[in-house]
């Protein structure tokens, strides 16, 4: 789908817990072929301290209703204002942006690892992997059990495992403390991950060590979101590359994350 600036109508805003909201945004333009990992850059016009757009993964696409879903965790002015969007309002959204996760060519066993709001791009990914009949294990980490959202929906697409830092849900610790990162790891054909950078680096390190393919989705701060400001670069084997256009999804082999 060609990127464009659209005014999308908020058709629902579901509060999932104290700081997560799920927005459904309806488009007037026919949605087509949005890839998991692609994102939307949303204007925040009701917060005095926000100037730039804010990028959000496309959490889910409902082609029947012609709407996209955005999962928002309120952490600052922009995300908090957006998470309070009223049904009926319109939001100015540039989408779809960036390169998404790639799909395995043959039937594979894949591991999706999400940390915090980094679970956002994994829902659409899980949905589409399931359509191609891959075997999917999903590992979601958070600080506490209360911070874990949408487990039920993830369960539709694969086996869901969890870790929490306080042990209130699933394995206690970080995602990489989970048994999946033990001997079993080698059995996966590919790992897809998104979350805080230290988490993704830890996942990437273990993927390297176990020689498993791994794609990560970066969250560098962005000014434009479509490749013209050169603000969002990450160091790659090919030099500085824009996370917004060459990513946000990168194969860890492109990144200098070996150690």
């Amino acid at each position, binding site marked *: 789908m*060609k990127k464009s600036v659209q005014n999308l109508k908020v058709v629902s805003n579901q509060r999932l817990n104290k700081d997560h909201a799920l927005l459904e945004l309806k488009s007037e333009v026919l949605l087509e072929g949005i890839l998991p990992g692609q994102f939307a850059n949303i204007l925040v016009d009701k917060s005095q301290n926000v100037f*730039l757009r804010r990028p959000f993964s496309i959490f889910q696409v409902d082609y029947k209703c012609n709407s996209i879903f955005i999962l928002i965790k309120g952490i600052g002015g922009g995300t908090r204002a957006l998470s309070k969007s009223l049904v009926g309002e319109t939001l*100015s959204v540039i989408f779809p942006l960036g390169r998404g996760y790639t799909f395995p060519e043959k039937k594979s066993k894949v591991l999706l690892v999400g940390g915090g709001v980094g679970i956002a791009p994994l829902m659409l990914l899980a949905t589409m992997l399931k359509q191609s009949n891959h075997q999917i294990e999903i590992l979601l980490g958070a600080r506490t059990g209360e911070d874990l959202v949408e487990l039920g929906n993830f369960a539709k697409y694969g086996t869901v495992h969890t870790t929490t830092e306080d042990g209130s849900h699933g394995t206690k610790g970080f995602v990489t403390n989970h048994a999946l990162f033990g001997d079993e790891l080698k059995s996966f054909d590919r790992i897809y991950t998104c979350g805080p950078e230290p988490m993704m680096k830890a996942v990437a390190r273990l993927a390297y060590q176990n020689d498993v393919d791994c794609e990560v989705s970066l969250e*560098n701060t962005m000014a*434009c979101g479509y490749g*013209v400001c050169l603000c969002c670069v990450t160091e790659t084997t090919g*030099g500085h590359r824009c996370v917004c256009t060459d990513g946000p999804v990168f194969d860890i082999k492109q990144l200098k994350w070996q150690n």
Partner: protein
Amino acid sequence: MAELNIDIAGLKLKNPVMTASGTFGFGVEFDDFFDLNSLGGFVVKGTTLHPRQGNAYPRMAETPSGMLNAVGLQNGGVKYFAENIYPRLLVYNTNILVNVSGSTVEEYIACAEQINELDHIAGIELNISCPNVKEGGMAFGTSCPAAEAVVKAVRKVYNKPLMVKLSPNVTDITEIALAVEASGADSISLINTILAMAIHAESRKPVLSTVTGGLSGPAVKPIALRMVWQVSKSVKVPVIGMGGIMNATDAIEFFLAGASAIQVGTANFIDPMASQHIIAGINNYLDRHNFKSIKEIIGGLQL
């Protein structure tokens, strides 16, 4: 429909709206959004003689009504531009300018010479004002002798319209403007970004890898407007105004202050369609106020 066309010392613009270097990529990135031929012109990314990796991430900080950048002229070098980008620009029927930077006068010259060979490039915007590189850059734009040296040198090797872009980081912008005019600039564009800084209080670290960066966006508009006014009263060559222009009202303010054309910069990030809305809004303003041509409001501030 008022007349929007304007002649900027040899550059024939179909309308006075251009887009600013470093905020518009190579133009091609906007193909999805609108027809680039609708623009008076566009200025491509800052180009240097040699390829540059630019500064380390983070290169951007959001600030109240603005942003800092410290891109540091990441670009493939003029040769890469000529071979890989230039061919893709041939399809556009509008004025394409290349923004040229350098660390030494020699680099400026060598870069300008190569651009002189590119027929479809309408002119050079000489960047003597980049605050984000260690050597040269802004230094050329903050002293009259340095500015004169680089403009004179490039003037000798470049035959087409030469627009010189000034740094706002000076005590008296008119001094530099006059020096640049006397050295052969066909037109003067301003402002580049203002040297500034952002700190992350919680981590006690600078937000930018380079500590300081360049401020742009609406926050700087009142400063830019003042400088455009000062410069356009001082020089005879046309002035191209920029700095925080977000909408047609902002653009009109710059015309009234004396700008013959404007460039849209940071606004492109907030709304890739900004330049289009601005063109439409200028038209609307001229019609509403019964002006027949954009020329009637240039420098039209009523004191």
